[in-house]
């Protein structure tokens, strides 16, 4: 379950390319944003599947997509002809690594907190991460709450309304996704992209 099977067979050459890659030089202007996005959530909720789905779904042979296991980046073009390059930092969701999370979300412009709609426990954990990000994340961080595995209707234990209510109370964007069917995956990232504050220009 979770992720679909085929993985792009292009892994090794990408990681070492620290230099000579103009894309990593932090070019970020009003039209082309480079954004650090941190993924938080219990282990097994499908954080990395969401990202793999997003990166694969948008797969464009001309773009230099880095396929790593836990760091991925993907650029999307918006209708207003701006682009947003997401640099997606996955975090280990096991409880024993919870204390390490601040190292990862420091400086993140976006926090995506994921839970599994079949697991109330993961929803509780998600609320814990939201509070933590509100307290210790960047002040202008864009937060999204994601209920994943939406394809498993019959096993649902967290009502949609609970997610909606919680997100509303905390001023965050909410969406239910299925990494398996790719439902709402692109919408999630497009919606986030729209909400990212643009560097102030003349307007």
């Amino acid at each position, binding site marked *: 379950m979770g992720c679909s099977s085929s993985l792009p067979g292009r892994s090794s050459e990408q990681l070492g390319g620290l*230099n000579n890659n103009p894309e990593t030089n932090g070019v970020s202007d009003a039209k082309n944003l480079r954004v650090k996005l941190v993924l938080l959530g219990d282990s097994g909720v499908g954080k990395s599947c969401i990202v793999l789905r997003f990166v694969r779904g948008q797969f464009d042979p001309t773009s230099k997509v880095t396929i790593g296991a836990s760091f991925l980046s993907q650029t999307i073009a918006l209708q207003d002809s701006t682009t947003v390059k997401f640099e997606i930092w996955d975090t280990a969701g096991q409880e024993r690594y919870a204390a390490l999370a601040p190292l990862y979300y420091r400086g993140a412009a976006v926090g995506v907190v994921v839970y599994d709609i079949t697991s109330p426990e993961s929803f509780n954990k998600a609320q814990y991460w939201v509070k933590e990000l509100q307290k210790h994340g960047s002040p202008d961080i864009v937060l999204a709450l994601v209920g994943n595995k939406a394809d498993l209707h019959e096993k649902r234990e967290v009502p949609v309304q609970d997610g909606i209510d919680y997100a509303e109370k905390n001023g965050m964007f909410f969406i239910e996704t299925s990494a398996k069917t790719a439902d709402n995956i692109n919408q999630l990232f497009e919606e986030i992209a729209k909400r990212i504050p643009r560097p102030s220009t003349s307007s």
Partner: protein
Amino acid sequence: MENSSSVTFYDFLDKMRNPSSLDLVRSIKSFIVSFSFHAANPENNGKRVQEFFSTMEAAIIDHPLWADASDEEIDRAMEGLEKYVMTKLFARTFAVSPEDAMIDQEISEKICLLQTFLRPEHLDIPAVLRNESSWLLAEKELQKINAFKTPREKLLCIMSCCRVINNLLLNASLSEDHVPGGADDFLPVLIYITIKANPPRLHSNLRFIQLYRRQEKLISEAAYYFTNLISAKSFIMDLSAKSVSMDEMEFEKSMEAARQANNSSQVEHSLALDEASMLGEHAYPATATTIETETTTSGRLNYPYMEAEPGELTVEDVERLLKLYKDVVTKYTSLCKTVRYLSMPRMGVIPPPSRGTGALSSQSEETSANASHQANSSSILEGTDFLSLEPQETSEDVHHKGEVQRSENCTKEVHKLGVDEMEAKIVKGFQQNTD
């Protein structure tokens, strides 16, 4: 990659030898010299180096030698600058604070204990990810971190280690019915590999990268994997029975047993540590030291401070140092005069100093000659710094020639050995040729 980076580095040195970059060379040298006037404060030093990099980047962009240069070329020059400056400042920037050395030791000792009983299942690493040969490869990559002197190369060791783990994870997800776990899989494996590898001076190496890797390069993917290793280090430091899947009693018992075993073999252990730190030193032979050692072997007894670290010196040493310094400068200036005198009749004009490779060497000679008329403490530092600059410059030049001759058949070896070891080898080979 290492090979192409050394070519980049010689390209940088070549540009620095161009007369028109004299102003840049001056800035670089005065920055390096100014560094010795300040007490070692890692945070401040890091800030100063980063500021210097930014200033120099602006200067390089505006410089005629880089007119119409692409961003990539500027970046290559900056990589060269980072390597040059950090190699020179290595002794003054790496693991200089006693606290850092203590943390290094603390981590290393804790890992030694953990190594005796911690198994992959204690971190719930799934069986499909337990691949001894991949792990060994990742460990080797990580252990190399202490064998390099520049922040970039140290960072590359972390990246290589993480690349091996990522390949393992990808293979596992392809071959087995294993749902890709992303960081849920990655971090435990990295932690376990860090424990198996026990990389020397882990804390100091991480700190060095953080402070001195050019800031615009410690971003994105590099920053992510770097953060993961920091995270692994932090997890290991705080590791207790609660953080692993292990019975608390059993954990405490295993730790105690490991301590006992370590104590009983303490003598051997400390010997091994000494040896390891010595090997560590030899793993990154400063090219300057290599040359100095070769050329001063006969006078070694006369210059007892050759191996001294700043922290070991006492006030009493100053007088002796000053005497030695004057002695060295006097000898050096008379040697220079003699060389000049000897080469004059043939050339008819005053030749450029010895090999005449440009600003770096001629300037240093001038300065040390001037310095001999001053006997204050600043001239000691200035003089010694330039004295040490010149041999290194020579070695790099020698290396350059050696590299060109051998570059084709040594590419593989460079990958195995690392640039610094390779440099030492080539320099030695070259000296044998010329002797």
